[in-house]
């Protein structure tokens, strides 16, 4: 992979920035969840409506001047989309607002990423923060309704949101109409164009849009799709203002049998986050970590550990917090095999619409299998490069791009493993895989 460039690991590491005194965080602890579902958790207090209002006061109205203040605050703290894309939130709101009123705002909490649980944690413990954010967006944009977008099987989240909506009705809060929708439990169910397509009466599959700034069909009402964490942050910002807002990120840290959702700030490094949230199987630091999501980037741990948990600080290194996955790879687990498994999973999660994704990703996964088995010839290496070049940027959505980003960073970060496998020698006793992959229902 030629588009990776290695510099000195410790060159120009940005310093952490302390949080302002009294800065308000979203969570009061770290949430611990099982590895495979987000139906139960511990470690974070659940805020019902009474607790929520006691903390933040009554829900604010964003009709009129308050909307401009909120947008200005979003600009001030550089609030960006936490679904993974980190597009500036205020710019997105303004762009949808320009398209006209009467549309829909979606709080996207369909966590297709198998390892990530931050949105579930928010819906289970801070449902009113998410609903406040959803209501705020509806008001700022002059939209008609709000939708909480979950995936099928997220029953705990569904019950929590249902209960929260009932609480608000009982308390006489003047919320816009809010519906809960359950998307199929698939990796791509949270893809924004697929959500908009569904609201227009179509299938829940991504689609191509000529103008990404207007992803709805001509003649249809505008739709704003924001990640649930993004909306919760907007609500927090509205309640406490830019000065008291803690510009943190929710990270899901994956250990061998459980996950921890931590709220990490720019005042701490990835190394510090890991020290308080990860259980090492062998007591040693990890070799590397998968950052962002399964379509994110592998980074060598000695490179990532000193960096602050802050997207602006990561950007110069071509890295992003993405959707908040921090998947540490313990020593003695083969990163190449792990990446091959994830790649195969992502290839299988294609929406089966675009040729380069349908045919390209499995073809690349086959070559990676050959690499793992030590059967990758010189010509295969060339073919792999060709495939990666041919697939990049050619899907209707970014799914294949993410899969290839994960792979190309793996081939660089695990270059030693690549060399070992190439000579037919397997890695020194790989322990087991660490990152969870849902069972294929068709194989079961």
């Amino acid at each position, binding site marked *: 992979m030629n588009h990776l460039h290695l510099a000195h690991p410790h060159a120009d590491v940005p310093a952490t920035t302390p949080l302002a005194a009294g800065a308000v965080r979203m969570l009061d602890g770290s949430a611990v969840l099982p590895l495979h579902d987000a139906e139960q958790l511990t470690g974070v207090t659940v805020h019902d409506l009474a607790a929520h209002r006691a903390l933040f006061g009554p829900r604010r109205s964003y009709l009129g001047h308050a909307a401009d203040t909120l947008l200005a605050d979003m600009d001030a703290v550089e609030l960006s989309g936490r679904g993974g894309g980190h597009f500036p939130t205020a710019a997105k709101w303004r762009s949808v607002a320009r398209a006209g009123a009467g549309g829909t705002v979606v709080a996207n909490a369909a966590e297709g990423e198998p390892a990530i649980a931050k949105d579930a944690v928010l819906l*289970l413990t801070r449902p009113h923060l998410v609903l406040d954010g959803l209501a705020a967006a509806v008001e700022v944009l002059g939209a008609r309704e709000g939708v909480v977008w979950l995936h099928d099987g997220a029953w705990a989240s569904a019950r929590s949101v249902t209960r929260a909506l009932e609480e608000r009705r009982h308390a006489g809060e003047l919320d816009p109409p809010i519906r809960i929708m359950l998307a*199929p439990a698939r990796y791509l169910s949270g893809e924004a164009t697929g959500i908009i397509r569904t609201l227009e009466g179509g299938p829940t599959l991504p689609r191509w849009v000529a103008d990404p700034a207007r992803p709805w069909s001509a003649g249809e009402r505008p739709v704003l799709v924001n990640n649930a964490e993004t909306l919760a942050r907007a609500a927090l910002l509205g309640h406490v203002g830019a000065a008291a807002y803690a510009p943190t990120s929710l990270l899901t840290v994956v250990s061998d049998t459980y996950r921890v959702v931590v709220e990490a700030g720019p005042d701490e490094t990835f190394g510090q986050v890991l020290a308080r949230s990860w259980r090492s199987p062998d007591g040693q630091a990890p070799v590397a970590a998968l950052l962002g999501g399964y379509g994110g980037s592998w980074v060598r741990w000695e490179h990532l550990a000193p960096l602050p948990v802050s997207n602006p600080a990561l950007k110069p290194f071509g890295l992003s917090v993405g959707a908040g996955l921090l998947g540490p790879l313990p020593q003695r687990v083969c990163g190449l095999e792990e990446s091959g498994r994830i790649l195969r999973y992502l290839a299988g999660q294609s929406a089966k619409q675009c040729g380069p994704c349908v045919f390209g990703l499995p073809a690349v996964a086959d070559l990676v299998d050959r690499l793992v088995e030590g059967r990758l010839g010189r010509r295969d290496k060339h073919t792999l490069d060709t495939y990666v070049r041919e697939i990049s940027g050619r899907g209707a959505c970014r799914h294949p791009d993410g899969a290839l980003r994960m792979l190309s960073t793996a081939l660089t970060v695990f270059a030693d493993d690549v060399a070992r496998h190439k000579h037919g020698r397997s890695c020194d006793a790989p322990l087991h895989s660490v990152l969870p992959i849902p069972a294929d229902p068709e194989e079961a």
Partner: protein
Amino acid sequence: MSRERMDQKAIDARSVTMATGLVLLVTASAFVTSWLIGLGVQRVAGDKMAPWILGRSAGVTSYLLLVALVLLGLVLSHPARARIAWPSSATRIRAHISLSVFVLVFTVLHIVVLATDKYANVGWWGAFLPMGSQYRPLPVTLGVIGFYAGMAAGLTAALAGRIARRVWWPVHKVAIVSLILVWLHGVLAGIDTPALLAMYVGTGALVVGVAFSRYTAVSHRDQAEDLADVRATELSGRRADTAPRAVVYSDDILGSDSRRSS
């Protein structure tokens, strides 16, 4: 209408004329050449069987080329084609187009030689009008209609991107009708040795087999439609109440010692 659009229309019209003209030119020159070949054969051989033999062999050749053309067409649209690395898809399309020209040339030779053969009793009327032939009118008619169907499939495809817009694609599928008619034409009028019978049966079975595989294979479009059928649904209050699992906030979900102290 703006001047620019009128210019564009003029360009479109010219390019359609040029493409149609090219096809007609090939057809016409094939006609002339075939006629000359027919005349030459009669002169040189002096045998009244010579044009018959030439016409028949041109027919068999054209049939075999048509089989190859249709087989390649089926491969071009086969759901599994993406796994065929060689020849490349661009080469396959070019081969498909070249084959169609050869089919046209040999079909014209077949028609002209037999239409001008005094002893064949087909004549020009028989060669171009249904039931116009005195010799075996039904089989000849099948061949005539097959020829027109093939011309429709070929000509609209040649005009794709000019006028035919997207018409060419549905029309192109009548090519299989052309092959069926031509096959019947051959079977009913062209079998006089066991070898020819074997050829028609073998090639027919081959095309049926490949067509079966092409139309029964699951394409990624079918898979996407299956995914599209599983839709997002709105959650009703009742459904949330009867949800299979309730959330339990407990401090020991991970076991007592599994959580790392920090």
